[in-house]
């Protein structure tokens, strides 16, 4: 099973191989846990419940998965929907239907984007400050730096234009920097 791709295993699940689904769970459990922990900032038991719901939904809807596409994007999309619903139920924030930054194009190409800070620095800042970011900016940050998804993959997960992914990451970094500076000055 380890030599098979996610898509091949998903096809096996579609054919009725239930044990193949266990392999997919094992592959993605940790990633989903990290994603949910950073996004929800909840305690572990709640996170586990949410993760279980994500995988159950993935199984129920496995027949809608197209093996020609990437399984990870499809699963992350289910995870995104579930995490957003959890946030809405907790009424932490209202996630608006229309975001102005999805209306017009922004020129923020991934490979040309100037990295003002290194990934290590980003990790440190994010770990300390991420809870204070709005979900709108928190999520692309998590997906990009922690889950290491590309702009295109993030666009498929959150269903926003690719250019908007770039602009949200840029804004997230900016906000994170100022939050981090505030935290650092509080400690001093």
């Amino acid at each position, binding site marked *: 099973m380890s030599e098979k791709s996610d898509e091949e295993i998903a096809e096996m699940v579609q054919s009725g191989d239930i044990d193949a689904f266990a392999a997919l*769970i094992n592959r993605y459990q940790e990633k989903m846990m990290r994603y949910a922990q950073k996004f929800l900032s909840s305690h572990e038991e709640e996170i586990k419940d949410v993760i279980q719901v994500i995988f*159950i939904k993935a199984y*129920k809807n496995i*027949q*809608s998965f197209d093996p020609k596409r990437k399984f990870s994007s499809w699963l992350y999309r289910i995870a995104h929907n579930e995490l957003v619903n959890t946030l809405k139920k907790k009424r932490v924030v209202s996630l608006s239907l229309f975001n102005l930054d999805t*209306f017009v194009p922004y020129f923020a190409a991934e490979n040309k984007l100037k990295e003002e800070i290194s990934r290590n620095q980003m990790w440190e800042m994010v770990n300390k400050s991420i809870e204070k970011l709005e979900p709108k900016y928190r999520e692309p940050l998590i997906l990009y730096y922690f889950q290491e998804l590309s702009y295109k993959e993030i666009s498929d997960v959150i269903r926003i*234009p690719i250019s908007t992914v770039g602009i949200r990451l840029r804004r997230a970094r900016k906000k994170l920097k100022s939050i981090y500076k505030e935290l650092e000055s509080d400690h001093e």
Partner: protein
Amino acid sequence: MDSDIIEKIKSGEVKMKPKTYFILKGVLFGFGLVLILFFTIFLFSFVLFVARLNSILFFSTFGLWGLKTFLISFPWASFFVAVGSVLLLEILTKKLTKVYRYPIIYSFLLILIVILAVSLFISKTTAHKKLWEKARQNQLPVAGRLYQDYETKKYRDVYVGKVLEKTDKDIRVETEKGEILDIMVTRKTYFLLLPDRKKAEIKKGNWILVVGKKNGDKINALGIRRVKRLEELPLKIHYIKPIDRFNATILVKPPISNERIEINRKEIDLK
């Protein structure tokens, strides 16, 4: 965690949805999308058709009064429902793969351009005329009321009549209701598509639309244009002379009988 989930699957507590469910969902979604698209095109083409038939855009050439009449006479209800449909289409198409990868403005403009282009084309065909005739005979459910409402619309200071006779200073017309009106032409009278302001192109038997204040049975014409009544619109356009820039006359020969149609075609061939 994996063992818990697998246990639930094996016990039947969690069941996989069948593939047919997703196929049916996709088909219904596609069908709904197409239905909304057709509905939007119908509405936009209806708006354009009504605007053309009632010369609504012509009113806007008469300053503040014209603007007010234009605003009152424009089919706003249909227009706003059509705009709402476009927004709905935009929301639905965003669910399609690849469409969400691009900013909303791109897909919105594309949808709008396609719809307007198709609507403009349809408004110039006889489609709405045929539907209108069915509506008059109460043979058109649902949409019939829409056509009937716009047929009965009357606009203040706007008169439509058939030319009975004309002189240098006025034109005598008879309205559909049989009312005889004298249209007073002055230097200020604006003739649409007639750059030299002569009324020479208006002949006896033509239908004209007149904008102006009524005083008894006289109207001081602010503007005059030739119009076609719905009945005059041909079912088939056999021969159209291109609009002559300087004469501004459109020649459309409505079919009188099948025989005459054949004769006309032969005449054209000989030419």
